[in-house]
């Protein structure tokens, strides 16, 4: 179990901006929850397959066919910002680091 959870790093991975007060509070709470979760280590799971989904063996597959969906106007109707016929986003420049 980690001694310290780097909340700022995790928040960055999750695209969440946190105030310093929030970060301090979440760090303490997450440590408590992670310490609670560590009880799973008591169990020997050697050779136990993971469950990602409970009924994968009985799921039907459908044909890969194009079907009508939302119209262009309907898809854009709830957007905070639209430019021409697309979603508008602010400028972005990825730094090289």
């Amino acid at each position, binding site marked *: 179990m*980690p001694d310290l959870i780097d909340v700022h790093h995790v928040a960055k991975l*999750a695209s*969440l901006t946190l105030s310093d007060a929030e970060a301090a509070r979440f760090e303490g709470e997450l440590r408590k929850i992670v310490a609670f979760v560590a009880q799973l280590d008591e*169990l020997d799971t050697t050779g136990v*397959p993971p469950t990602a989904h*409970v009924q994968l063996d009985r799921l039907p597959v459908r044909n890969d066919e194009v079907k009508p969906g939302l119209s262009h106007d309907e898809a854009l109707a*709830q957007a*905070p*910002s639209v430019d021409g016929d697309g979603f508008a*986003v602010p400028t972005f420049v990825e730094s090289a680091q």
Partner: protein
Amino acid sequence: MADSVVAIAERVRRGEVTAEQVTTEALGRIAAKDGALHAFLHVAHDAALEQARVVDAKRARGETLGPMAGVPVAVKDAICTRGIRSTAGSKILGSYVPPYDAAVIERLRAADAVVVGKTNMDEFAMGSSTENSAFGPTRNPWDTTRTPGGSSGGSAAAVAARLAPCALGSDTGGSIRQPASLTGTVGIKPTYGRVSRYGLIAFASSLDQIGPVATDVRGAARLLSVIAGHDGRDSTSLDVPAGDWETACGRNVKGLRVGVPEEYFAEGLDPEVAASARAAIAALEREGCVVRSVTLPHTRYAVATYYVLATAEASSNLARFDGVRYGLRVDPRHELRAMYGATRDAGFGAEVKRRILLGTFVLSAGYYDAYYLKAQKVRTLVRRDFEAVFRDVDVLCSPASPTPAFRLGEKVDDPLSMYLSDIYTLPASLAGVPAMSVPCTPTRSGLPVGLQIVARPLDEATMLAVAAACEAAFPCASPP
């Protein structure tokens, strides 16, 4: 019962009352009583009356009406309704109006039901009290200083107060069963894959399931039979037909084997809740059920397993809320990454952030195997517990919640203690098996208590037969 789902539908079908009259009465009750409860986030006044008139016009043309003819249905706000605001209890979707209906809403309309409004919930279904709603909590109609449970607390409170005879909720770790237990209503989490989630705003996709809340077992069975069935738009939807669950409600339970898991009657269980659940099990025994003690040895690991898996899935599902295609946008610096962060900071409440952070952490490099993969393996052990026990018994009976309704504010500052209030409902969620809560004897102070009944995958019929037998011994009451 005069105000039950089945009674209303049959009266509307026979023309003894119009759908419009039923709807007008329901809207009147909501207007009169919901100020004190806050079960609803939006009342779909005009849309409901319009839908009711469509139903009445259909009858006037001589067409046969569907099984939900004119029945008012309250719908959890995580379920998309075309043209009716759907917020999932979050500021980030505060003004979102879906351009399409969820599959369950299409099915309700096809069955001639009337959607009267959208109900309050913990933000993105993350919580057990509705106190995590961005729009303020719902109050329990039995005692307005107490929570109705959650996350489908608005749906449960609306049904308990008879603002509607039935509602839709969603259950990821107990979010239908726990509020049903705390409000004295019937709530069903169907088998994983029974009901299409197309149009359900996702929380944890390997667990989420939509289900009914109703004033009685038969009404819940009818609503379930309307919403269940295969849908190609949800890749987890099973291709199995709905059962005749109303008939199952009348089935004799003599000879059915009822398992009582000893781990569910352990430390932390309120003694009055324990006594009430035991009395309900004794009543089933008098009806001819064969009761035996069983063990589900990995029960104590379910809470930890659930909070790793559900938060991991939530952190991925909620990545879609980025201020680009719909929902809130906060853009202080006119720069993309800052816009994502500011939007999500302003749009999500504390519990949602906490779970996104935990989920991101357990999936992050260096911790994935230790937490996420480990929890997936323990989930297999929890499933095997159920597989083993269902070789010997037909259903499991236990309390649905370790306590009756707790006070608003009582657990809100202690996330871990709130998580533990789902201790009896989480294992069935992890196993994907059907489970429900049905009212049994209330506490001495008059608070409702629910008996949880769990059955084999796809065996909702046996579960409902047992629930109906319990209901016959302890009929649902409505709050004073």
